[in-house]
């Protein structure tokens, strides 16, 4: 799935690296005891540390450390047992300290990898350069007053993990797959809720282009704070095309920070942070080095859940699923648990088909998640049992499923109540066949005269006669017998 931009003079390849800010799940903030809940009254979750008051000292939250290590382990990354906090200096109204406490030269997590599951079933590996801990900034609100911006510091000091990828991605699709996979991993780990629309996962994309075949890295631009996977993909495509246009008209790209405007479908330069790239990092004198030992890392490793990649492998080997099906089923751990409940003791491929095709379709249509599914795993399992023991046909099963989606009932109850059981007694099927043959004697003649193709038509008519309930195998056999001259 190569993504190339055909220009006037050359064909171009896009080079993408992503920086993701993931808000860590914890009760209190990174360096203070103020709470982290979303949507509280303005400035009600602020300690004097978060407000940048003079004389306040930051003290690190042990859970923030644990969550960063856990995420690093989930990314198969190097864990640095000694890391150092640094001050990243810049001025902004929602940054009361005048600097952000971050990590620079010695981050808590080093190099790792993420495996992308592409929509055609193939996989690709993308390198993680680092993961470091840092403080979130406050929030500016611009539409509450005609001439003022309002600042709420509730988010100030909340723990973020900044996860930086290598410039390994070559298409908007790969960037989308990266974000979805990262979100899946942090959700499995319970280290971040991954909600991009609430801002608990935010993405900056570094984009550059180069002629196909070249290995140079040209000047990149950073597109900031794009708040959905779809917008990230769009922003990358627009930014890449802008670079191509500039290069092809003889211009040059300046390294700069840009904002994506999804309404206009364009990126534009950010004005305020002229000196944004001169952060003057230095080790934070308020904070000693963060140090832990191997036992600590091992104790966290021992509590890691089965992660999406391993689960996918297991689904492929134990259930004989395709890479695509397994990949789809493991994205959310709730979905994979649901699937395993349905598949237990049943044909795993049939279970996968029902979950992926029918259930996902129904949930999408209703716009609800699997945890709110009106069809329980137990009931979907029962429905599959009803097909495999020939109580109902596959076609009727689809109707029963529709009823289950609407009413949430047990499929056995629905089949009984509506009289949908398959007709398996020879007499009733024969009676229906005879009725159809009597009503269509001309067609019977044609069939007997050699028009074999009419068999299908007869099957359809008899099915209709029985309300779709005749056992298809018996129907076919009896029909052939009756029709033969």
């Amino acid at each position, binding site marked *: 799935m190569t993504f190339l931009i055909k220009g006037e003079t050359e064909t171009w390849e896009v080079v993408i690296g992503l920086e993701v800010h993931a808000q860590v799940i*914890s*009760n*209190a903030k990174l360096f*203070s*005891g*103020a*709470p982290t809940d979303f949507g509280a*009254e*303005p*400035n*009600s*979750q*602020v*300690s*004097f540390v978060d*407000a940048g008051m003079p004389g306040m000292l930051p*003290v*690190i*939250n*042990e*859970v*923030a*450390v644990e969550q960063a290590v856990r995420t690093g382990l989930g990314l198969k990354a190097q864990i640095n047992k000694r890391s*150092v906090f640094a001050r990243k*200096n810049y*001025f*902004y*109204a929602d940054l009361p300290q005048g600097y952000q406490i971050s990590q620079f030269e010695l981050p808590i997590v080093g190099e790792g990898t993420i495996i992308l599951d592409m929509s055609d079933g193939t996989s690709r590996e993308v390198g993680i350069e680092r993961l470091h801990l840092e403080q979130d900034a406050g929030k*500016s*609100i*611009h539409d*509450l*007053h005609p*001439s*003022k*911006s*309002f*600042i*709420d*510091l509730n988010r100030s000091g909340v723990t973020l993990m900044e996860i930086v990828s290598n410039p390994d991605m070559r298409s908007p699709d790969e960037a989308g797959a990266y974000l979805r996979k990262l979100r899946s991993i942090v959700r499995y780990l319970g280290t971040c809720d991954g909600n991009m629309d609430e801002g608990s996962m935010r993405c900056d994309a570094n984009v550059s282009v180069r002629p196909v075949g070249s290995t140079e890295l040209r000047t990149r631009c950073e597109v900031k704070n794009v708040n959905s996977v779809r917008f990230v993909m769009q922003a990358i495509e627009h930014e890449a095309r802008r670079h191509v246009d500039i290069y092809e008209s003889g211009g040059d790209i300046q390294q700069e920070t840009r*904002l994506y405007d999804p309404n206009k479908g364009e990126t534009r330069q*950010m*004005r*305020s942070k002229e*000196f944004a790239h*001169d952060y*003057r990092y230095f*080790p934070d*004198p308020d*904070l*000693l*080095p*963060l*140090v832990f030992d191997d036992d600590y890392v091992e104790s966290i490793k021992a509590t890691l859940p089965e992660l999406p990649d391993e689960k996918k492998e297991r689904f492929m080997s134990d259930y004989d699923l395709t890479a695509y099906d397994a990949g789809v089923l493991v994205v959310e751990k709730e979905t994979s648990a649901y699937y395993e409940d349905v598949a237990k003791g049943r044909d795993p491929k049939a279970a996968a088909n029902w979950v992926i095709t029918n259930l996902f379709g129904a949930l999408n249509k209703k716009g609800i998640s699997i945890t709110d599914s009106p069809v329980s795993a137990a009931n979907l399992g029962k429905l599959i049992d009803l097909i495999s023991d020939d109580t109902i046909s596959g076609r009727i099963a689809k109707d029963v499923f529709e009823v289950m989606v609407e009413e949430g009932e047990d499929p056995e109850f629905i089949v009984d109540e509506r009289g949908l059981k398959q007709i398996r007694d020879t007499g009733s099927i024969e009676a229906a066949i005879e009725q159809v043959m009597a009503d269509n004697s001309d067609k019977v003649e044609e069939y007997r005269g050699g028009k074999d193709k009419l068999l299908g038509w007869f099957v359809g008519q008899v099915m209709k006669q029985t309300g779709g309930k005749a056992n298809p195998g018996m129907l076919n056999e009896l029909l052939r017998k009756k029709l033969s001259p």
Partner: protein
Amino acid sequence: MSLDDATVRKIATLARIDLADADLAPLAKELSGIMSWIEQLQEVDTDAVEPMSGGTDMTLSWRKDAVSDGGHADKVLANAPEAHEGFFGVPKVVE
């Protein structure tokens, strides 16, 4: 190392310090003095010394993940030049 006026002007801008033109030259001289002192320190051979990020060999102590603060917006806002409905009010900064 001696700093020129333009560099001093840039440093002042980064630190948001309003600097009169007349102060540039004297400041350049003072900062250059500090820089040459650091240059002198760099003559010390530190090849065998592990880089430090502080003056002690202590490490960070950790805090439990428990909520122990917050709930005092009034105190947080007490010294703010301007506050509106629980928010800090600042000149409009829109991207």
